[in-house]
């Protein structure tokens, strides 16, 4: 089981990056999902969507090279790649809701074996709001949850989410530092297990029921 925080992140984002295909339009959530952009396989040309209003999000500009009119959805200085296009929030969410986004990668507070996702509030504690998450999860062709397997040692992958949902039954895949889980009509199928990790550990750290794939592989990261 991987213990190092940085190594966990690296395993997760590297594995998620392998899901992206040439030509994909991808939205990466704020935080860890953003790092996926650093590991896109060679020969794979993707476009990143920024829900504040463009496709073709580029790398963070060097200090002193920021353009005040280009920020990402976290209001951080950003850039655009050659061939980018800007638009308004109406078009941005037409793209998201309309099924034009191939993949969205985002974090979760909880996710369950029905593919339910909770990531926008903890009643009475923390209510950041859903921002674009509800639309992203409903609209994207493929929804990948990228997160650490547990929070303070407690499972985040549950039989049934207890927090208010972001969307019902929309998650397709969960990638953590322990493995890769696919959401199927039968339940959660563990298709890959992380290096240095025992199957028993994954099962112990997951509240949801896990179906182990017949051809369980080791995550390539």
């Amino acid at each position, binding site marked *: 089981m991987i213990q190092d925080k940085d190594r966990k992140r690296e395993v997760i984002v590297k594995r998620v990056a392998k899901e992206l295909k040439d030509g994909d339009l991808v939205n990466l959530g704020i935080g860890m999902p953003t790092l996926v952009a650093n590991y896109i396989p060679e020969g794979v040309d993707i476009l990143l969507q920024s829900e504040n*209003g463009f496709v073709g999000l580029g790398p963070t500009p060097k200090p002193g090279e920021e353009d005040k009119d280009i920020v990402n959805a976290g209001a951080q200085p950003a850039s655009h790649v050659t061939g980018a296009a800007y638009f308004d929030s109406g078009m941005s*969410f037409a793209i998201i809701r309309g099924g034009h986004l191939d993949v969205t990668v985002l974090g979760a507070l909880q996710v369950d074996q029905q593919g339910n996702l909770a990531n926008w509030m903890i009643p009475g504690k923390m209510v*950041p*709001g859903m921002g674009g998450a*509800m639309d992203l999860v409903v609209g994207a062709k493929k929804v990948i949850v990228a997160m650490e397997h547990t929070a303070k040692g407690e499972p985040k992958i549950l039989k049934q989410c207890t927090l208010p949902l972001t969307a019902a039954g929309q998650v397709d895949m969960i990638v953590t530092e322990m493995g890769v889980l696919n959401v199927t009509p039968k339940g959660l199928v563990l298709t890959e297990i992380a290096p240095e990790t025992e199957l028993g550990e994954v099962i112990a750290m997951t509240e949801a029921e896990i179906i182990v794939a017949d051809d369980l592989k080791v995550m390539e990261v």
Partner: protein
Amino acid sequence: MNKTKSIDQALEYIKDGMTIAVGGFLGVGTPEKLIDAVIAKGVKDITLICNDTAFPDKGVGKWVVNKNVSKVIVSHIGTNPETGRQMNSKELIVDLVPQGTLAERVRAAGAGLGGVLTPTGIGTVIEEGKQKINVDGKDYLLELPLKADVALIKGSIVDKKGNIYYNKSTRNFNTLMATAAETVIVEAEKLVEIGEIDPSDVMTPSIFVNVIVE
């Protein structure tokens, strides 16, 4: 018709208790001079329609800090801790709306639609109090128009007729808010003569704009 006015003249359109729509995404594309002028005038009891409540020292976030608003209709408040504090202490009503739904509700108001059906929010608390309509076997929520008394817009280039061009990611909600208010006030980063913006490059046509400030 001369739409160019001083900020003081523009402020005459803004009164206590109004619903005000403000462009911008986390403060980017927000008319900061107008924001500050509203604070200076001490306008109270605003219902704010905006994507978010920005930051305590930026954009509409300053209205939250200065208690100009009594209700916010936004998709996100996580970047402004003061919004969360006032919400928890019941000083401020926070109506959270999914971002895409917010965009469509404002657009619907501007476009004369009675509402739109969206799949966003189905199976969540967002369903509460809303009509659910099934189309071709799929459930949608009926989301209603959202209109303001005044919209405050930030334009990168504005001509003296009121045509607006927004640079890069400053466009966001500005185009939508500009269609959905009784009075639209635009703050021009750069004010130019009529005709200097190519007619095909105009993003908000002059017909939506009532007042231009610099």
